[in-house]
């Protein structure tokens, strides 16, 4: 502890300079938005129903997408980290596909599978009358598709770093695999899960390409903030800046609040 404190004081220039440059690179575009924001008309622009609808929809869908990512992503990460099976490397690579796939292509791919005439979607439509395109559920699916890799990678990393012997200790105490998973493994990797969920939520909140391609754009139903921003950019760049700032402000506030609550406890 003492050593760490002593070392913490003076960062070497070799690290400090690129660190600050990197920070500037990330923050300056934000400054650009702030400088160009039409502050005088900000209030009236924000109170428009369409803005509030889009914001509400964004928050709801991003949160639902995060929940879906947790439900499916955590078990998937566990499989990748704990269950040795043939082709695990391939599966791991496949999991990252949505990361490298341009989101628009991801949206088309989703249409081909879950669309009204998709491989699975066609059957869902015929058997249950369920269709996803042009629905809020479709937005959630698109966001889940794009955001899930962030959760899986983050949780898998945490699982690999976790000390397996705790699980052995739990086993000797009579815990079955499920008990071990939810009472020992999961709490141990909770910081990793939280970090993954936050990344996931942020990615879902900013999702544009897959959403508009798969779910379309209809105010109140599928028009999330990024879609509203994009369309505002067509005619009214000032409004686009306002919307972007709203999205950023909400994201920063939520993430900061979560960070205080979750990240610091462990």
């Amino acid at each position, binding site marked *: 502890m003492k050593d760490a404190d002593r070392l913490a004081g003076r960062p070497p220039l070799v690290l400090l300079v690129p660190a600050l440059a990197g920070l500037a690179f990330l923050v300056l575009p934000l400054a650009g938005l702030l400088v160009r924001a039409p502050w005088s008309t900000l209030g009236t622009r924000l109170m428009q129903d369409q803005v509030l609808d889009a914001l509400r929809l964004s928050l709801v869908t991003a949160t639902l997408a995060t929940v879906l990512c947790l439900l499916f992503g955590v078990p998937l990460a566990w499989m990748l980290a704990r269950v040795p099976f043939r082709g695990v490397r391939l599966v791991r690579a496949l999991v990252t596909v949505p990361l490298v796939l341009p989101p628009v292509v991801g949206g088309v791919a989703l249409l081909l599978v879950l669309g009204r005439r998709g491989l699975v979607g066609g059957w869902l439509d015929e058997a249950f009358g369920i269709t996803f395109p042009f629905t809020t559920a479709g937005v959630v699916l698109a966001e889940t598709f794009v955001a899930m890799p962030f959760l899986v990678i983050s949780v898998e990393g945490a699982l690999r770093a976790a000390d397996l012997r705790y699980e052995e*200790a*739990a*086993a000797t*105490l*009579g815990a*079955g695999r499920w008990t071990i998973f939810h009472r020992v493994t999961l*709490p*141990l990797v909770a910081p990793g899960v939280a970090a993954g969920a936050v990344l996931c939520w942020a990615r879902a909140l900013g999702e544009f390409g897959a959403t508009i391609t798969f779910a379309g754009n209809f105010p109140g139903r599928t028009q999330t903030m990024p879609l509203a921003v994009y369309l505002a950019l067509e005619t009214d760049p000032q409004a686009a800046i306002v919307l972007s700032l709203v999205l950023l402000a909400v994201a920063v506030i939520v993430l900061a609040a979560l960070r205080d609550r979750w990240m610091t406890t*462990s």
Partner: protein
Amino acid sequence: MSEADRGARGLEARLVVRRGAFDLDLALTAAPGEVVALLGPNGAGKSTALRALAGLVAMAGGHIRVDGDDLRPLPPDRRRIGMVFQDYLLFPHLSALENVAFGPRCQGAGRRAARRRAAEWLERVGLAEFASARPRALSGGQAQRVALARALAVDPGLLLLDEPLAALDVHTRMDVRAALRRHLAGFGGAAVLVTHDPLDAMVLADRIVVIEGGRLVQEGTPAEVARRPRTGYVARLVGLNLYRGRAEAGTVTIEDGTGTVEDGAATLDTVDSLEGEVFLAFAPSAVALYRTRPDGSPRNLWRARVAAIERHGDRARVRLAGPPFDAVAEVTPAAVAELQLSEGSMIWAAVKATETHVYPA
């Protein structure tokens, strides 16, 4: 294997584990209430044996019977064993109480009942006031006691302890060792303890099983093992000079010895009347050193080269190199000065026949 063995209480096991070049093949028993220490050098297979008992390592053969039930086909969580791990592995996200209640909960006890049982166990190990503390807030000794309580709270038929004292500093270790001895004495089931510290084994165990290279090399009560080591490793651990040889009419010819004792072969005289293959042991303190050939010649007298001089507590250990054989002598630091001992110097060494101890090999 007779029917009587099969129904025997306590632990009766043969552990066969293969892992690449290493293989373990060990027969192990422990009666109810008996504490057996597995003692051996690093890599001897002690921990592997313990993990095999716990079901954490797959066995290539053998069996594990506890109170007559074969545990080998069962997964770890159904073996009803208690295990204390080397660095305790208390769940960091749970309080001391919740750690101890974990086992009873898994065994199907209700939340309340489990917590009550855990509280009792914490009380028993003297940590009632730390019930709500996180493991991080506990000292090493306290953590060890919580780990013990956690292992015992599942009411195990077999208790396994993997180097339970290794993580502690010297001072805590003495106290914790004494406390552990009390708790082990109060435990009614069979217990197996893994250690590389002979003192832990001597203090805590009723019986010591020495393994080297995955095989049992010696077994006995602590006193037997200490007095009659059968391998160089054990002899070094208990601090004895040990030789293997052939006894004939009160004289033992040392197997690996060369050259002469005095003038003849590498032989030592004893007062035992054993014949045949034997071990011969004597304590370093039984070796007397002389600068010149002593008068009135004791019978076991040899000339040796000083290979090294080491401090050992308030005594000095002098390593003597053969021919005729290697030995360790223990003298006072004053004697080192008096005899003007230095590495490489030649001296006379003697050991009385009555100080040697001979037992069958």
